[in-house]
């Protein structure tokens, strides 16, 4: 398949919200309501370099609103960079990224796209949440404060509202009894579940999962994966997931993208990618991952 075929936006997934105008409500105009409408993601000719190393080479792809997409491929193939660009942790060197209808790193001015300032980024980030490989909980705050910090200081919830939301989420992730604990006192699996709850407390429309079980002891992986499966089942959040856990990728994904050297070399539903991959490089990668 020529790479140009990958530029067309994905079909909306049956039973899930279609990519809608509502998702593109102007930043700042829609408040909390617009933040909950699922957003699609589009990469248009996105380039990212680190020094001389071209990590993403004019990348085009799209994720439908509410779609669950897993990025697989060898390390260094640019998967994590995609998530980091979306979370505004890295700045693209070229191209346009859209979340909903709005460009993430640009603003439209007089029909032209110009580089956006921090204010625009702040509004756009409200749509996006991220869970990190290393959890990155704030060790100077207890679990509850980790969950209320964003809702209070970013979404403007009152402390009581934020606490109520946080307790609901701790219930969801099975850690209702840990709200006073400090993150360092929790196991890796518990920390990651708190981190997931912290991301959800911001009610993102797009959730980015960056190798969320890679740092966990094997026996703790299942709990976190089960939680994410539940979230995938019970919400309509758009999910973009980088993982080396192929079983999990198969369960959670509507579509799998296989990356190599900053390009998508193959994509399709998980059944197809895992059982009948067309590309030799995909087959080699899957063999290597399954053998490890």
């Amino acid at each position, binding site marked *: 398949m020529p790479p140009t075929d990958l530029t067309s936006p994905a079909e909306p997934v049956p039973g899930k919200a279609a990519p809608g105008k509502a998702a593109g409500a102007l930043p700042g105009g829609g408040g909390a309501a617009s933040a909950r409408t699922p957003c699609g993601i589009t990469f248009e000719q996105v380039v990212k370099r680190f020094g001389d190393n071209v990590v993403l080479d004019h990348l085009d792809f799209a994720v439908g609103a509410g779609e669950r997409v897993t990025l697989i491929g060898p390390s260094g193939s640019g998967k994590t960079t995609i998530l980091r660009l979306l979370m505004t942790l890295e700045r693209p060197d070229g191209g346009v990224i859209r979340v909903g209808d709005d460009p993430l790193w640009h603003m439209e001015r007089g029909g032209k796209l110009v580089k956006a300032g921090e204010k625009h980024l702040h509004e756009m980030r409200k749509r996006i949440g991220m869970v990190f490989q290393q959890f990155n909980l704030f060790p100077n705050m207890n679990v509850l404060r980790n969950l209320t*910090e964003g809702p209070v*200081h970013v979404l403007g919830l009152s402390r009581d509202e934020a606490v109520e939301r946080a307790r609901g989420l701790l219930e969801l992730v099975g850690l209702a009894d840990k709200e006073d604990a400090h993150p360092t006192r929790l196991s890796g699996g518990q920390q990651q579940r708190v981190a997931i709850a912290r991301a959800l407390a911001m009610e993102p429309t797009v959730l980015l999962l960056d190798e969320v079980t890679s740092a966990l002891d094997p026996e703790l992986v299942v709990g976190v994966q089960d939680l994410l499966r539940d979230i995938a089942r019970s919400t309509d959040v758009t999910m973009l997931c980088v993982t080396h856990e192929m079983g999990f990728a198969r369960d959670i994904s509507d579509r799998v993208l296989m990356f190599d050297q900053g390009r998508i070399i193959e994509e399709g539903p998980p059944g197809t990618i895992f059982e009948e991959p067309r590309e030799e490089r995909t087959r080699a990668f899957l063999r290597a991952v399954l053998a490890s």
Partner: protein
Amino acid sequence: MNWDWNYTGKLIPDLLDGLRVTVTATLLGYLIALALGLVWTLLRRSPNPLVHQTVRWVTEFVRSTPLLVQLFFLFYVLPSWGITLGALTAGIVGLGLHYSTYTAEVYRAGIEDVPRGQWEAATALNLPRRRVWAGVVLPQAVRRVVPSLGNYLIALFKDTPFLFGITVTELLGSAFDEGAHTLKYLEPITVAGLFFIAVSVVSSLALRRLEKHYATH
């Protein structure tokens, strides 16, 4: 040379007055050092090269000149430019300014020690810049540097006798005055030394406890 207990007893009230001045200068000077040091650190991170370079040179300059020169400057030179500070005020400002250049380095190291993942998590939560600093980075940075900051408190305390150079009758100064008055230096200077030791030891113990508290919380 015999130790005169009677004389020693009479000295104590005056020396305690001196100690009060020393402790006042220490605490106020230290507060200035803590606050101003943070200001230096944050300004040094300014994207504006004029700002961060200027701050870099000012702090470098202050750190590499002797405290006594700075005190003389504040107390004897500034008045010729129309700025007159009381001796104790000049002393407190001098100590605070001098030590702020050290605390600035301590803060800088502490901030650099905060893992990148913390900044990234704060960005992912979309926390406003001020909240990132006040809620996430500084509390973690300060926790890491409490021991170093504490050591500078004790160092600053031990530097307070320099204030005698600009006529502040602090602890050592009051001991010296007593000696000059009676021409008996043994008792006042020894007692002043003991006061210094007592305060240093008590502060060190308090700092150890603080460190332990931060290590376990």
